[in-house]
């Protein structure tokens, strides 16, 4: 058992350098942060600040050029592709600005996808998917609809249900309200808040200062460095 104040995400002097021709671009330049289990964190920064790179690091989609990333106490630098995938699958639920649902699948099938990769049986998947759609407040009559038959807010709810499917300890949201109108955006943030109060660590990356009010902790990032 992990104690409550153990950091679930830990970055130590993380650098991520892209080489474009002869130019070296420091997307992250020595970032050290620590996120506690159960926290609600907003990572704020303007575009180009390096916040998306940071999100990819935490989401185990990208590895640092130097420095150390630990997710749920596992050092990512020691892992190969499949190991990284396993950590991602069991620890991270992604929520994207563009929703990123698979257009050819219905809402409920989209929610089933992460469970499919986790090897859950079809019956269990279906049951869990319905449960998660309820948790994300999607009216169940939309379960068999394709993404293009739903509003933006509904699609984001499906995406949240999908992110929750494997019950990951961390929800990682990249501008979750960016494509939604203000009221729908508020509802989505309230939903994330609720999920956070039931124990899930929520990390939201945004440039929108309004989202700050939902979080306990704010990390500001600028030119690849943490400024606050």
């Amino acid at each position, binding site marked *: 058992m992990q104690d409550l104040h153990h950091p679930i995400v830990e970055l130590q002097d993380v650098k991520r350098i892209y080489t474009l021709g002869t130019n070296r671009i420091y997307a992250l330049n020595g970032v050290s942060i620590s996120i506690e289990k159960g926290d609600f964190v907003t990572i704020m920064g303007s575009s180009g600040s390096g916040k998306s790179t940071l999100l990819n690091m935490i989401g185990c989609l990208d590895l640092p050029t130097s420095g150390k990333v630990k997710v749920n106490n596992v050092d990512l630098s020691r892992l190969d*592709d499949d190991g990284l995938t*396993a950590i*991602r699958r069991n620890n991270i639920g992604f929520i994207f600005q563009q929703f*990123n649902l698979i257009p050819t699948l219905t809402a409920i099938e989209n929610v089933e996808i*992460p469970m*499919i*990769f986790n090897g859950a049986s079809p019956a269990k998947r279906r049951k869990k998917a319905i449960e998660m759609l309820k948790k994300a407040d999607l009216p169940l009559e939309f379960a068999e609809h394709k993404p293009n038959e739903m509003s933006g807010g509904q699609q984001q709810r499906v995406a949240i249900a999908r992110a929750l499917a494997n019950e990951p300890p961390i929800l990682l949201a990249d501008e979750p309200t960016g494509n939604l109108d203000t009221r729908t955006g508020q509802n989505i943030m309230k939903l994330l808040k609720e999920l956070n109060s039931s124990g899930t660590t929520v990390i939201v990356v945004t440039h929108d200062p309004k989202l700050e009010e939902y979080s306990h902790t704010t990390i500001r990032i600028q030119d690849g460095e943490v400024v606050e």
Partner: protein
Amino acid sequence: MRYELFIALRHIIARKRQTILSVAAIGIAVMILMVSQAFMAGFTQELYSKTVDNLPHVVVSPEDGEDHIYLYKNIVDKINNIDGVVASSPYLTGEASFKYKDNTKNAVLKGILPAEEDAVAHTRDDIILGDYDGLTYSDKSIIIGDTFAEDMELELGDNVEVSFPNANPVSLKVVAIYDTGTALDESLTYTSLKTAQDFYDIEDVINGISLRLNDFNRDREIAEIIENNGYNADGWTVNNPEILRTIAIETVSNNITLGFILLIASFGVVSTLNMVVMGKVKEIGILLAMGATKSNIRFIFLIESGILGLSGAVLGTAAGIALALSIGSYPLPEGAYGLEVIPVVVRIGDVLRIITIVFLLNLIAGIYPAQRAASLDPVEAISSR
């Protein structure tokens, strides 16, 4: 059902038009393959039945330095006891001059035992006029080819004068006319063995025995058995090497063409799947973020190419079989190439072989796009449009 299959099927179902086009591309290539394979098999079979089937499979000839085979009845008995020999026909053959009215012609006169010769070479089937058994019923009778008859202006019932230096001239009555569609029709005539022996003024001897085997592929083997018994014998592959050569050349050139067709079809699959991968970059990124491993992704695209390949192969062979059979049942205009229909043979072995090869080729063709999909960077993939 494995989830990779589930996702692959979804991809295939979701882009109906692309799927239909690529399955059709493979299917058409396979159809061409199937049809030409059926033609090839039909051609080979036709060639065998037109030539080898009517050919003596093995011919026994006199020992070196001898003109005749003596005491042939013993030999024929021995040969008939060899396993694999279905029939044997002793004969005496030689040159003769034929004269009818003012027409003269030199040709081969072959003295046979009519029933035995028919058992070996299906001579009776070639008779177009008259009665093959005429040879058996009357001594002074002859069977001639249709071209020979035309050249000599001979008709059924006419008597043709036959002579040769050192032979006893004789007048033979035409009892039947045959047509094999080959050059023999002009140069080979049949009479009874006894008549031939009288004509050449020799005792009861022969100068050859032709054999029919239950399997014409065993000709060399049986010829060797006979040689081991002290007689000269050669199989049809030695006497008529051009038949085997024709079939070999046809087969090789056919296989090369078919190989190229398959190659083109497989490239079609590569490019189709490559397009699919390009169109699915974002989705692959999402799947990777949702916990799919690289091997999951690779497997999904391999399954897709396998499914496309297999359905193309199955539909293509079905269409090919239907097309080949319908072409094969279409009657040719009379006299064209001496065939009534285009010979077509569909062999289950060919069908299974084509399906398997096409399926495997498509799996191989799918490796490159699948590898490409698996090696996408998830971050870039997700942020792509």
